[in-house]
């Protein structure tokens, strides 16, 4: 397929891959998919490499027209995808024909959907990644969100389309964004900057996701937290998932487009396997936090990566 035409852009649709992981020492935001797990699964379903670029749609999905036959998959939050007006399943690779139109409806669960296309999106990589960093106006499609009339270039698919259509995931591999679950975090590096009481509040009372939440960070509202000795530290490194608490005592979870350094105390960092569940929260949703230790978080991570390795192996077997 040469390209996908944007008939309607949706609320905020960008090209994303797994981000710029090698440039944080130069103050470069990683960007990349907010829900990296869904992006990886979308890619693997259509035979792409997991780090290929796909579309990330937010709250209201786009309307896209395909220039040729191909295979696509839709994962992440359920924004009610439909092909030529007929609802299509998510988490499954779907055959599409030239001039087919993919559209979206209501936001049912989560808020970010990923649309992968066999062959991947072939915008030029900037600093090793095709992710859009819209604050810096670089990466993705012309450094911005999609607009009406855009033609998004698609790479060559390595497979026969009939080999990759109709593929689905094991039920256990599909993340469940519907069931309420705590967001787990590893305390620190400045968890001791908070009063003991505040740390207990943080882990026992729910926080609301406010309207001031985007790809850069989620501002939360709930029980005000108190610092022992002020909220400011000498600026140091911050990573996606860091939970900063400035002097007003309300937490901010930093997300994919966050800056690389910051001067506020961090009460903890969301564990890798729970970041997708944060990324699928939208304003007025609630978050409950639960502290875990680093060893447990790394065991969960290893388990998840093992599952993904299995899917990658299946793709390699298709190539034989």
């Amino acid at each position, binding site marked *: 397929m040469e390209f996908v035409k944007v008939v309607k852009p949706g609320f905020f649709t960008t090209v994303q891959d797994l981000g710029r*992981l*090698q*440039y*944080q*020492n*130069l*103050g*470069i*935001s990683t960007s990349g998919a907010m829900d990296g797990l869904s992006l990886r699964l979308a890619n693997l379903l259509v035979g792409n490499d997991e780090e290929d670029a796909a579309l990330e749609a937010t709250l209201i999905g786009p309307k896209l027209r395909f220039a040729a036959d191909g295979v696509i998959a839709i994962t992440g939050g359920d924004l009610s995808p439909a092909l030529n007006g007929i609802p299509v399943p998510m988490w499954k690779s779907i055959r599409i024909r030239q001039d087919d139109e993919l559209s979206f409806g209501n936001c049912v669960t989560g808020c970010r959907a990923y649309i992968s296309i066999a062959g991947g999106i072939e915008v030029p990589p*900037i*600093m090793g990644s095709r992710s859009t960093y819209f*604050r*810096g*106006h*670089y*990466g993705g499609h012309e450094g911005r969100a999609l607009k009406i009339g855009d033609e998004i270039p698609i790479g060559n698919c390595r497979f026969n389309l009939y080999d990759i259509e109709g593929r689905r995931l094991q039920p256990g591999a599909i993340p469940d964004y519907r069931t309420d679950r705590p967001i787990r975090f*590893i305390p*620190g*590096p400045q968890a001791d900057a908070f009063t003991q009481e505040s740390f207990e509040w943080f882990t026992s009372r729910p926080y609301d996701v406010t309207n001031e939440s985007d790809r850069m960070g989620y501002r939360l509202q709930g029980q005000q937290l108190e610092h022992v000795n002020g909220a400011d530290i*000498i*600026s*140091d*490194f*911050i*990573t996606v*998932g*860091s939970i900063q608490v400035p002097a007003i005592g309300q937490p901010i979870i930093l997300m994919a487009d966050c*800056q*690389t*350094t910051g001067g506020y105390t*961090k009460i903890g*960092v*969301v*564990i*890798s396997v729970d970041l997708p569940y944060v990324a699928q929260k939208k304003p007025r949703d609630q978050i409950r936090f639960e502290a875990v230790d*680093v*060893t447990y*978080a*790394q065991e969960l*991570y*290893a388990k998840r*990566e093992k599952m993904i390795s299995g899917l990658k192996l299946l793709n390699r077997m298709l190539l034989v």
Partner: protein
Amino acid sequence: MASQLVSHKNLKYVPLGDQTLVVQFENKISIEVNRGVQAFANLIKSRKISGIVQLIITFNSLAICYDPVRISFYKLADTIRGLEDQISEDHAIPSKTIHVPVVFGGEYSPDLDEVSARTGLSPEQVIQTLYSKPYYVYMVGFVDGTPYCGDIDERLVLPRRSNPRVKVRKGAVAIAMNQTSLYTIESPGGWHLLGWTPMEVFNPYQERPCALVAGDYLQYVPISADESERWDDQRQREWDREWNS
């Protein structure tokens, strides 16, 4: 005999989530502490420890991003702690000095009069004081290659503006606290703007996107408004040949 850096005593090893380990040095901003961070980063790099993805230097800490499938937090912390005693001045990289052309005065220095009034120095004195010496680059962070440099003359030390600007022009040369920096992209900002550079210190499309990295020195060199407005790629190449090679 390699000289020992005293700044690496009592290091703390803490997790920043499940994929980053932070080595915390002494809790202060000083060139000596920062050179200790630099030295440790270079020492770790030279050991090519399996699983390390990236090292990030900040004022007084070293962040180590790693793949937890290949190495656990505790294994990595043990491995790195085992190198502590070998940190020496020899590992602090030889720093280069990057000369940055800056136009001062008039529209290029919107906060000059205020800084002059608050410091009691004349506008000329403020500018001369700023470009009179090179500044150490403690770290490159925040967004898009923003360098944090210091320490500026103590007579110029002021808190950030109480009312930050919504939009600061790319290339603005600024001071706040005991630091100086450059706005590498147009962004909001609360620092005092004293000059403007036509030099692109950050360009995402180049193989080396940032002109400055942690451990370098930054030296401002005054140029005329005329020259700054005529600045182009060719002039930049000539400038780099003359000053930055």
